[in-house]
Every structure is written in structure tokens, then in C-alpha cells.
């Protein structure tokens, strides 16, 4: 404890220099926090995605959609708790660049409880949707983007044509919903029956089914049982859990692991040199003061420890500042990877890294300070 004031005054001997070092190390660790946090955040986000919700789609992407009559066959498969059908059409609002995906569902009460992973909705809005044939639920984001409000009538243009040959679809906004992930373009939810009855082709089909397995532990078996049930039928299926889909979606970030590792090591190497050089310079300038300490009876070991402690305090404080900055950046990073937040283990890792940098970069200056010849240092040589 009695060393604390000494360490403190050592750190602030040159306030400008210390401030710059703090800033530099903080920047390095902010970058570390963002990159490493992104990587761990992706892994955690995969682990948190539900494995018991299965997405049943056509066996071939872009192939013919599945008949809605499959719903009954799906329900009869052992281990299946709930089956929900969904279809969608790509549309645009006012010009082709303003893309809006319209998801058509059968608005049963299952959506209130079962699938918050797709969207969350209040009972009132869901019932309003059920009562309005061409009703639509929108997210706050998309409402703000295009100036839509509940009660508005919106015309959307699609390459999917209606029975009357036109590609203009009208929707009546009846309520709000919350998107689980803030997607880029956003989507709106409407009644499947409206979509299906109005469109000219692919009637009686769906893009996919959502199947919830009764036992999450056995979701994998349910998934293969579904695909087996439809092999060699005209519409083969491919069933994947939400977690598997998420994994594929985020795989690409995982491919950046190598880049992240390279950048993080480059940053750490640069910091290492910087802090080591600065401490070396500081020891050189302070050699008369250190000699006085030794004359007063401080042992070589305690001088060594003091120099190392200075390094640790500076690096750890700076690292914490940097990691706090990184945590503040994360809401913006989640624009690219929905659902990301700063994992706490990355903060721990960062602090350990800071101690590590301090120990390595202080080793040489500290031993120089410890071995300082008192007489020569006092003589100013």
C-alpha cells in the first residue's frame, strides 16, 4: 500500500506522455474489443438460436414450392408439436430499389407465443390482421422509412402477378409488430389467404413450413424424419433448424477469423513496442530519482516491482477505456450482424491481454531500473 503514491507519481511524472500512451493503448484495445467481440458474438448468437424450430422448404432452392396440403402430413410425423405455413412475395414500394418482402402467414394464436424468433406481435394486432383480408403488420423501422402509419393503404409492386394480370398489390396497415432482427430492407406480414387467392400462379402452395419440435433434444431426428417422409415425392423437402440456418448465414463472418487474428496481433505488436520504448525512455530520464530511492533503502526487487506495477496500471486502465468504447460501438456493428452484443468474456480476455503486454514491455525497463548503479546515476552519468 505504501508504494501506491510512488507508483501514482511515477505514472504522472510526464502527464502529456502518459495521456498519449493511455489514448494509444485504449485505441488498440477498442479495436481488439470490436473485432474479437464480433467473432465471439457470432458464436454466441448461433448458440442462442433455437434448435427446436425447423424450417421446412423445397429440396431445391428456387424450385417449385410445397403444396399446403403437406401441413397435415407434417402434423402426423412423430415429435412434431406445431406446424405453421408461410409464403412470401418480393415487392417494392414506389421504385424497384425500395425492396419490401411481404410474408404471408395464417395468423393463428401460435404466433403470440411460439415463434418470437420470426416476429413478436400483440394479440390485438394479430386479431386485427385476422379480421382484415388484405391487412398488414409493419415494423417501426419500415414505417419510419416510408412514412407508413396504422390505417394507411399502401400499394406495392411485385413481379408476382395477380389473377387480374396486374402486379400492384394493396395492403391495409392494421397493426405493428417487432422484428426479431433488424433486417436491411425489412418485411411486412399479411394473410396467406390474401396472397394465395390473389396470385395468378402457384396457388395452394407455400414457400415453407415452420415446424416446432416437441422435444428440443430430438429436433435433429424430427428433421430427418420429415425429409424421409417426402423423399421420392414430386416435392422433396429440405429441413433445417433455425440454428443451422443461422450458422450458415453467419459462416461468412467466421471466414474472417484469419483476418481478425492477423489484425489483432499486428495491433498488439505495435502496442508492445510503443509501451516498451516509452517506459525505457521514462526510466532513462528518471535514473537520478530511482537512485535516490535505492539510497533510501529500496531494494532492487521493489524498484523492479514498482516499474512493472506502473506499466500494469497504465495498460489495464487504458484497456478498460478501450473496451468500454468498443462496447459503445456494438449497437452500430449490429447493423451488419443482427443481434450482436459485447460478450463479457472478451472484456476478460482484453484485461488479461493488457496485463500480458504490460509484463512483457516492462521487463526490460524494470530490470534496467533494478540494476541501476546508484553512484553513477546520482552523479548524473
Amino acid at each position: 500500500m505504501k508504494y501506491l503514491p510512488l507508483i501514482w507519481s511515477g505514472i504522472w511524472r510526464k502527464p502529456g506522455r502518459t495521456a498519449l500512451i493511455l489514448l494509444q493503448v485504449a485505441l488498440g484495445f477498442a479495436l481488439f474489443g470490436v473485432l474479437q467481440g464480433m467473432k465471439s458474438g457470432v458464436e454466441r448468437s448461433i448458440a442462442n438460436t433455437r434448435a427446436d424450430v425447423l424450417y421446412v422448404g423445397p429440396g431445391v432452392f428456387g424450385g417449385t414450392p410445397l403444396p399446403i396440403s403437406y401441413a397435415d402430413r407434417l402434423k402426423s410425423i412423430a415429435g412434431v408439436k406445431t406446424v405453421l405455413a408461410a409464403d412470401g412475395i418480393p415487392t417494392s414500394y414506389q421504385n424497384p430499389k425500395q425492396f419490401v418482402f411481404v410474408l404471408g402467414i395464417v395468423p393463428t394464436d401460435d404466433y403470440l407465443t411460439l415463434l418470437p424468433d420470426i416476429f413478436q406481435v400483440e394479440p390485438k394486432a394479430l386479431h386485427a390482421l385476422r379480421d382484415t383480408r388484405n391487412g398488414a403488420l409493419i415494423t417501426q423501422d419500415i414505417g419510419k422509412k416510408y412514412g407508413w402509419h396504422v390505417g394507411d393503404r399502401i400499394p406495392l409492386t411485385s413481379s408476382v402477378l395477380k389473377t387480374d394480370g396486374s402486379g400492384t398489390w394493396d395492403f391495409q396497415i392494421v397493426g405493428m409488430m417487432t422484428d426479431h432482427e433488424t433486417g436491411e430492407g425489412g418485411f411486412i406480414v399479411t394473410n396467406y389467404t390474401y396472397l394465395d387467392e390473389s396470385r395468378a400462379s402457384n396457388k395452394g402452395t407455400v414457400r415453407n413450413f415452420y415446424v416446432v419440435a416437441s422435444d428440443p433434444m430430438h429436433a435433429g431426428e424430427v428433421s430427418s424424419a420429415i425429409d424421409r417422409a417426402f423423399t421420392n415425392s414430386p416435392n422433396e423437402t429440405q429441413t433445417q433448424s433455425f440454428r443451422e440456418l443461422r450458422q450458415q448465414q453467419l459462416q461468412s463472418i467466421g471466414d474472417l477469423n484469419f483476418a481478425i487474428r492477423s489484425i489483432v496481433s499486428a495491433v498488439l505488436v505495435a502496442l508492445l513496442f510503443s509501451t516498451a520504448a516509452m517506459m525505457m525512455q521514462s526510466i532513462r530520464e528518471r535514473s537520478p530519482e530511482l537512485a535516490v530511492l535505492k539510497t533510501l533503502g529500496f531494494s532492487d526487487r521493489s524498484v523492479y516491482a514498482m516499474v512493472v506495477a506502473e506499466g500494469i496500471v497504465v495498460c489495464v486502465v487504458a484497456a478498460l477505456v478501450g473496451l468500454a468504447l468498443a462496447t459503445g460501438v456494438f449497437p452500430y456493428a449490429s447493423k451488419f450482424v443482427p443481434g450482436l452484443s459485447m460478450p463479457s468474456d472478451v472484456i476478460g480476455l482484453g484485461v488479461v491481454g493488457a496485463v500480458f503486454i504490460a509484463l512483457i514491455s516492462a521487463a526490460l525497463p524494470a530490470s534496467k531500473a533494478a540494476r541501476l548503479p546508484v553512484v553513477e546515476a546520482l552523479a548524473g552519468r
Partner: protein
Amino acid sequence: MRLTKQYGVLLRMSLMGVTARLGLVLTIVIGVTCAVGVLVSMLAMGVGARREALGNVRPDRVVVYSSDAQNTQQSSLAKDVAAQIPYLPGIRRNASGKPIVVFLVGAFVQARYKSGREGGFLVLGVTPGLTDYRPELHMTAGRLFTPGLHELIASNKCATQFENFRAGDRKHVRGSDWAVVGNFDNGTAVGLCTVYADAETVLSTFARNTYNEADVMLESAGQFAAFVDAVKANPALHLKAEHEADIVAENMQQLNGILNFVSFFVGTIIALAATIGAANSLYAIVDSRRRELATLRALGFGAVPIIAAILSESIVLALPGAVIGALVSWALFNGLSASPLNSSFHLAVTPALALLGVGWALAIGAIGGFLPALRAARVPVTAALRAT
């Protein structure tokens, strides 16, 4: 004249002292090396991706697709509409006098990469005339597919990414067996895995009845405006025409945007850290030379030459970092294949990127050296001379 002479002397003194202050000097060099190396390597991803995507683009090639579609994948081109496209003006004719128009339909086939990862490839069904439209395509093995048969040809990239894509292999696609009858190279760029097959066979296999787009080769790039006007003149077609380059660039836009944002975000933070490190080192260098500088001021050296000399020293110390950083990036990453965000390309460390790195280093040196240079010029002469 006097000032430049003073500046020369000061700069020589600064640089002769480099070996005596090796630790501080190395901090600047290594900081800049890391900053430039990281920036150049990250940008090399975007440059490599764009180079490969645009490698084969020609100004006389035009893509025609539905006017209400956001992109070509969403476009659908009915056959009766398609039949009118070859009669549009300005289209080049092949050796036998037929207009060079290729209709194309893309279907995605899910497949597992050799690495075990789930993914897939696009089967492009094309009508006859592919080799007229893409003269850069040359077969490295086997032959072209025969229309009407379940035959396909695959680019050499496919064989490296997936199993069973060598000429002579058989591929199971959508319930039927397809024969891989040939392999080809896509001209200069290696590109993504590309699979071509007969359009009608693809349409019937995937139960579709419309093409996605028409690829048209014009007599010359100058015909483009006339061609676009002809397309617009017939609104019943619901079509639009764009340069091949624009379509490719549009497909690249998202990837490029993300890569560039990440590169400059990361690059700027590292550069800031390097600048602070350089400033700190230079402050220390100036501090250790206080008496020397005060003596010079007493001898009549001006403030301007001192500022200029310290700034120059800072820049001169930053430059080797830029060169080393660019070289390390080139040695480690040039030509390395990367596949972020479901695309696949080789990193390209180009001279232009190296130059950008040098510019970056100059900025780090100049900004980092500015305040220390001011301090050097403001050394209080009497106090510094009296100090021990």
C-alpha cells in the same frame, strides 16, 4: 537561403542521432508498419474481388431484363417477349449471320463444399450461342454440352470447391443424373464456380417457363444508346437494358461497401494509434535534445527551420514503415484466396494500394510530428541551457 541551409544542418543532425535513440525510432517505424500493413492487406480484399469480377467485362455487352425487377435474379422473361429481343437494332451477328443473343436462366443447387460447409452453386441454363457471346471462355477439358441432354460444363473453380466436377464425372441435380462433359476457364479472371447447361433442359428440370435475362452483344459499344432507346420505345416489353459492367458492379456493391467500410474503419483506428505513438516518441526525442536545441537557438537558428526539420524527421521515419508494411502485406497476402461473405477471390496487393499506404504514412508522420515540432521551436533557451 539562410533558412534552407539551417534546415539542412538541422535535418542532418536529427538523422545522425537515429542510432542513439533506436528504441523511440523503432516505435515510429513499427507503428507505421502495422498501420500500413493492415490497411493495405484489408483493402487488397476489395481490390482482388473487384478485379476478378470485372476482369472479363466488355463495353459492347448488354444485359436485358424485366424493367420492374430489382436485379437480374428476380427478373422473369417470358418466351414471347424474349422472341422479340433479337430483332432490336445494333446487335452484332455471328459468322453465320445470326444475332448474338443468349437467353439465360439461373437455378441454385444446394451442395456441400469440400470443406464440409453447406453452400451451393448456380446452374446457368443458356440458349445456343454462348461461345459467340463469351469468346473468353475456353475449354480446358472435354467438350460443350449438347442441347436437350442432361449435360453440363463447369468452370475449373468448381472442381476445386466441390466434389465431382471434373469432365467425365456424374452429378446428381434435382432428381436426375447429369453428365459433366467439360471444364473451362473464364478468361483472365478465375471467378466463382460457374456451371452452364442447356436452357430448355434447365427450365424443364426446375419446372420453370421463363428466362431471367437476355445477354446481348452489340456491334460496338457506341450502339448502346440506340439499343436502350429501342428497348424503351416498346413499353409493352417491360424490359430494360444495362451495360454488363453495371450489372457486375451492382452485384459487387454490397460486398465492396462492407469490405471498404471495414478496411477504412480498422485502418483509421490503427493509424490513429500509430500517430499517437509517433507523437509520443517525437516528444521524447525533442525532450532529450532540449539542451542541443536551446544551444542552436542561442546560436541564431530560427524557429521555422527547426519546425521543418522535426517534421521532416518524423516523415522520414514514417516512410520506411510504409514500405515495409506494404512489402509484408504483399509477401504474406498477395494472391491468397479469401472467401468472406460467401464470395471467393484472391487478394491483390497492387502498386496503387502501396502508394495509398505511403500516403497514409506521410499523414501519420506529418500529423504525429506537428506538435512535437512546435514544442522544439519553443524550447525556452535560458532555462534549457541552465538545466542539468
